């Protein structure tokens, strides 16, 4: 029982299942060849539903969550980064990218054994680093073929048929390329099923996040990191879509029964961007003040798909299935997939920090926040660019903001003592003492 506990708490019943799904994912990828399957590598943002048309024995490894797993293993992460630096790559590059490269260069899989070389790379260009990430991997492993989709068509509010055509055209080319390099015949039915699954899993994740508007919050962000990650691994899979429905039902039960993530909840915060993965204990430190992070645009919007509901609040995007749309062709599936992904909240702020500020202020209001904790993440230029503008906008909207510098994947750039001191000061300014 936590100090000054006012709500009951209990562990998530489906926690173990989430861990198993993640473990199986990395194991299945590593052992794919033993079962005659195919391995591909690419970003968590890539259109993973498309390679599913090659068969049920196609397994992927998404670079960012894999690199985050490395970051959590501080010893291995340091070896990865030192290996990359030895090769002359700059220390201020994306730390996910550096961790991934390090693992390839060392030929070591963070889960044990040699790094399982992919059969092909399937990537999209969401930011400068993502554009270069696998180009360097291909330099290291020239025999691994690579296909990249350019997605830089602007924010969703200006997406039109021409922009969708641009994406769908590349996707169609990509399918031809997949057939050519794997020698397999492409199955549109499997693509359609994967698209349905992706829409379902990402909408349900948003539904789960909505439940955190409740007081007490049924989930804290530290826990959510271990759950949203499944979507970053294989948002297109039935396993993840089914699991998220199970999780949603359990979280609903927690809300109905006032089961809190943090029993002494009295201060609600949100963070932003990837956290310093090696130091998630700072989220536990918040609990000394009865504070918790209930989420962030990052946790909600990297995997969750959202729309503004009739009452003006943010809710899960209505899926094609819910709209009664039946997908009948490859082109239709790809168009829905492109449109769906381009509406991803985390995609929008690559184009303007103001779009991000609007979404953050919406979260701050609808999730009843007392303040905001912004991670000036030196490890990810894509998600951190414009964050100082977001800070100003949040302050103007009346939400106190604390900032701390760090790095999601390079612990050398995170100062734990200083961050804790800032949290102390921030909590004091919000009027919360440590609960003794």
């Amino acid at each position: 029982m936590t100090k000054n506990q006012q709500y009951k708490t209990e562990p998530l019943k489906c926690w173990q299942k989430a861990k198993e799904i993640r473990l199986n994912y990395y194991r299945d990828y590593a052992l794919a060849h033993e079962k005659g399957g195919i391995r591909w590598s690419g970003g968590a943002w890539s259109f993973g539903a498309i390679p599913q048309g090659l068969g049920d024995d196609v397994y992927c490894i998404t670079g960012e969550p894999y690199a985050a797993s490395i970051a959590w293993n501080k010893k291995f992460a340091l070896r990865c980064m030192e290996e990359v630096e030895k090769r002359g790559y700059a220390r201020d590059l994306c730390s996910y990218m550096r961790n991934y490269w390090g693992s390839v260069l060392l030929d070591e899989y963070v889960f044990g054994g040699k790094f399982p070389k992919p059969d092909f790379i399937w990537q999209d260009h969401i930011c400068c680093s993502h554009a270069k990430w696998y180009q360097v991997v291909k330099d290291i492993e020239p025999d691994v073929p690579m296909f990249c989709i350019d997605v830089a068509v602007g924010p969703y509010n200006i997406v039109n048929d021409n922009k969708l055509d641009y994406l769908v055209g590349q996707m169609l080319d990509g399918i031809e390329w997949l057939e050519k390099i794997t020698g397999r015949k492409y199955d549109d039915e499997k693509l359609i099923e994967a698209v349905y699954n992706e829409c379902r899993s990402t909408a349900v994740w948003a539904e789960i996040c909505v439940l955190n508007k409740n007081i007490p919050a049924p989930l804290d962000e530290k826990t959510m990191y271990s759950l949203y990650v499944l979507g970053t691994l294989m948002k297109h899979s039935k396993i993840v879509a089914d699991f998220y429905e199970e999780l949603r039902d359990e979280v609903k039960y927690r809300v109905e029964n006032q089961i809190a993530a943090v029993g002494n909840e009295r201060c609600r915060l949100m963070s932003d961007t990837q956290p310093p993965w090696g130091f998630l204990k700072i989220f536990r430190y918040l609990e000394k003040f009865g504070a918790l992070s209930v989420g962030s645009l990052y946790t909600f919007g990297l995997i969750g798909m959202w729309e503004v509901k009739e009452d003006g609040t943010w809710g899960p995007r209505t899926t094609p299935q819910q709209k009664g749309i039946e997908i009948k062709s490859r082109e239709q599936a790809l168009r829905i997939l492109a449109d769906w992904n381009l509406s991803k909240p985390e995609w929008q702020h690559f184009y303007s920090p103001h779009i991000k500020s609007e979404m953050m202020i919406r979260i701050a209001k609808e999730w009843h926040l007392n303040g905001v904790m912004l991670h000036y993440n030196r490890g990810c230029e894509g998600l951190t660019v414009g964050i100082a503008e977001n800070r100003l906008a949040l302050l103007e909207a009346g939400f106190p903001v604390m900032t701390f510098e760090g790095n999601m994947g390079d612990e050398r750039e995170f100062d734990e003592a200083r961050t804790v001191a800032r949290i102390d000061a921030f909590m004091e300014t919000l009027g919360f003492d440590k609960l003794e």
Partner: protein
Amino acid sequence: MVTAGIDLGAKTIKVIILDNGNILIRKIGLAGFESKKAAEDLFNKALSDTGIKKEEISEIVATGAGKEEVEFATKKVTEVTAGAKGAVFLFPSAKTVIDVGAEEGRSIRCDETGKVIDFAVNEKCAAGAGAFTEAMARALEVKLEEFGRISLKSTKTIPMNAQCAVFAESEVVSLLHAKTPKEDIARAVHDAIASRITSMARKVGFEKDIVLIGGVARNAGFIDSLKREIDMDILIPEEPEFVCALGAALIGKK
């Protein structure tokens, strides 16, 4: 009501004992490597000098980077809260407090009660802190007290790297080799620190009146540079390094 404030900073410890808001004593000493013992010794010295017994003190409030070391404290507050409280006590019109200590620079926006509205702290870099001025004074082979004064004699502006103490130090060495007068180098160093501090302070904004606290507020050269940088007047307490200890003692009075 007697209260005490102890600011265990990176370099020095400051102790203040208040009796109903009146300062009974101020004490300052080096933190050293045994800061826990140094704090206790300094506090005991303050007690014996005033003739007050520890039991007569209703609240002992610790602040500063080493506040957790002050085991006999009854309450602990951060330097941000203490600094704002102390500055507003001394200057009720204060709305912005700039605190430059040995290892850290801070900027605080507060209301008329001393409640913190927003704050910014320098990141992992010594270029905006007192330890840097000490290192530069050593490089110029002048006493720290002189370092501030001689820079006032300079009228030249020499640009210097304001982002990194290490790079700035190598620039100082280059300037020395180029036979640049010491006063011009001293001013360049103060300008660089002022630029760094101002950049940080702009994150929370400047609102009059602005109060400068912390040990570096004793450095006339830095004050001159900071005034030129922000183009505004700055209020400076008589004992700027004691303001956080004062704020802590005032918080104990509540």
